[in-house]
């Protein structure tokens, strides 16, 4: 059965993950909108997941550690998204803005 390991070298996959991570990083750094920052972070988490799955597939296909870690990351990402968006909504309610530059006071 032909598989990905024979068809695509591992560095390609890792490069893809690295590129995705960098794009996500750019998004997280450059966006003014807090939701936009959250989108960048989600992209970065996905890049990490690709890495984990690639390592699992290419190096240790019989051990589920890679997939398990990826699943934990997905869990954490979901929790993070929920909390982050709840915070954004709370901030919006208090300040009528979602712009990160304008949220510069520690007092809610």
């Amino acid at each position, binding site marked *: 059965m032909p*598989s990905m*390991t024979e*068809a*695509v070298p*591992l*560095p*390609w*996959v*890792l*490069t893809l993950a690295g*590129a*995705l*991570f*960098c*794009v996500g*990083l*750019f*998004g997280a*750094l*450059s*966006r*003014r*909108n807090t*939701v*936009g920052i*959250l*989108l*960048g972070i*989600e*992209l970065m988490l*996905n890049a990490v997941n*690709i890495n984990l*799955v690639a390592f699992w597939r*290419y190096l240790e*296909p*019989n*051990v589920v550690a890679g*997939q*398990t870690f*990826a*699943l*934990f990351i997905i869990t*954490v*990402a979901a*929790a993070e*998204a*929920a*909390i982050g*968006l709840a915070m*954004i*909504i*709370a901030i*919006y309610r*208090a*300040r*009528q*803005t*979602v*712009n990160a530059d304008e949220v510069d*006071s520690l007092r809610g």
Partner: protein
Amino acid sequence: MNTLITILFVVFAAFILASAIMTVTVKNIVHAALWLISSFFGVGALYLLMEAEFLGVAQVLIYVGAVSILILFAIMLTRDLEGSQNRQLTPRWWIALIVPAALFGLLIVPTVMTYAWQLPPPPAGQSPAISGAQQIGTAFMREYLLPFEVAAILLLVAMIGAIVIAFEERERRRRVLTLAEQVRLRRQQRQPAPLPEPAATAIQASEATGGES
């Protein structure tokens, strides 16, 4: 068959990266979220290509089905009134461009390309069964039981936390502002009265309107 997989990989990779780039550059935040969804889809397809069926499906279920819906909801609940006309990027966005580009070009690519990966030799004859959903389940119940429980508690705490943060108590709940009122409020915040601290003005303004209604 290998050619097909290579082509598929390249297509998926291009799709993921293009979607990701659109996500971070596009002006409209809803469009950004939609591009993010398509990027998630690409990643899920990549998982399937890597024969991680469970993970691919979980990716679609959690990211596309839940997280992105959550994001869309949040965007629509916090609609930025005049936001689409404004700049979406920070003033010094080029610094934010240089850092990841440098990270990618100087660190990631050289490392990944030059490191000697000790890949296992291709299996002779019948390839061994790779771990699937059943193995993952077993692993969660055996080796990773503690992290599994911790993740469950994390989710519970996150759920409660999200509710607590986003919940408005009834007596604090204000009347929903009309569009005109919101625009007026925004304008007040944009052009603060000649007071020393703009932040304080904003707070006062919001409190003032809160008291009115």
